[in-house]
């Protein structure tokens, strides 16, 4: 049986418990939270009662490549998942070839997305380092038909690039309120809209994100030296 995980919710402090309950009700077994690290630690006990595995996540929004490198050096050891929002092509290239980056995100706003998108070069670089491309449901929700159609078209192209180079694809809600959270199969159905088959779509909300989480937990654990090398 598949274990589903929503790798990104972005809750307000007072709504975090409500969102944990919602995630459990929707059938998730894991939840990536991008908020204050102390807050994430404080809800872990409550989440385990609900059968949820909590993953700490940080979304970097660097202004340039130097900023990205500095932030990566500072943050990498503190969070289990590290994603980079690529606001320019230079940042996207740099992030795709840095082994410390787990997930590449692209702007949700259409005008920005038309300027910077997940192209073939980035897909190729990211695939070599097992860095994932993320589709965020929050980018699509609440958009009018014209904007939605353009966004879907850009995302379809990006998904094709990721598929071509075997770059892992993950889908997450990016929800900041419980009303924006969706059940795992609903999230997978969005990838079907983007041209993936059912099996691949379900992997994007189950096996791919779990693989990233378990690999990073191994790296953050004691005794880790480099990939494949560990002090026993």
């Amino acid at each position, binding site marked *: 049986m598949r274990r589903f995980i929503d790798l990104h919710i972005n809750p307000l402090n007072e709504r975090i418990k409500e969102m944990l309950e919602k995630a459990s009700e*929707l059938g998730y077994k894991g939840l990536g939270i991008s908020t204050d690290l102390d807050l994430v630690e404080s809800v872990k006990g409550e989440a385990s009662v609900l059968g949820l595995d909590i993953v700490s996540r940080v979304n970097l929004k660097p202004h340039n490549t130097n900023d990205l490198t500095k932030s990566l050096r500072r943050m990498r050891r503190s969070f289990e998942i590290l994603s980079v929002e690529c606001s320019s092509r230079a940042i996207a290239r740099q992030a795709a070839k840095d082994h410390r980056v787990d997930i590449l995100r692209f702007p949700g706003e259409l005008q920005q997305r038309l300027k910077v998108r997940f192209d073939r070069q980035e897909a190729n670089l990211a695939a070599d380092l097992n860095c994932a491309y993320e589709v965020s*449901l929050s980018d*699509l*929700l*609440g958009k009018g*038909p014209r904007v*939605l159609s353009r966004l879907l078209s850009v995302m379809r192209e990006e998904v094709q690039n990721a598929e071509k180079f075997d770059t892992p694809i993950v889908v997450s809600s990016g929800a900041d309120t419980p*009303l*924006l*959270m*969706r*059940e795992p*199969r*609903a*999230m997978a*159905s*969005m990838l*079907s*809209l983007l041209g993936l088959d*059912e099996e691949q779509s379900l992997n994007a909300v189950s096996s791919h994100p779990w693989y990233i989480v378990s690999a990073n937990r191994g790296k953050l654990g004691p005794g880790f030296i480099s990939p494949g090398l560990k002090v026993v």
Partner: protein
Amino acid sequence: MPVRRKGRRYLRIRVESPRGFTDKEVINSIQRGILEIHGVQGLSQIEPVLLEFDEEDQRGILRCNRDRVSEARAAITLVTAIEGTPAAMHVIRVSGTIRSLRREVETCKE
């Protein structure tokens, strides 16, 4: 002469919102969602019909064509408001027969 029946799927749906909705409001928003995403042709292929809807607990059963469940689900996922009120729709279960869905509802009520 035997005629092969159209394959159907039955989706148990739940509407979540600060206020309650009528069955007409719900099916209208589903149809509008499908039209936005898949167009008129998509709507004709999905053929969504809200068979029943309980206005008290905001749950109902939606019928669609068997081969178009994923498209229907995607359109339902993208619904963020009904009649201007923020809302979310969730597909709780998909079944090949309406009877099994009804049986589950009765079990839940018991």
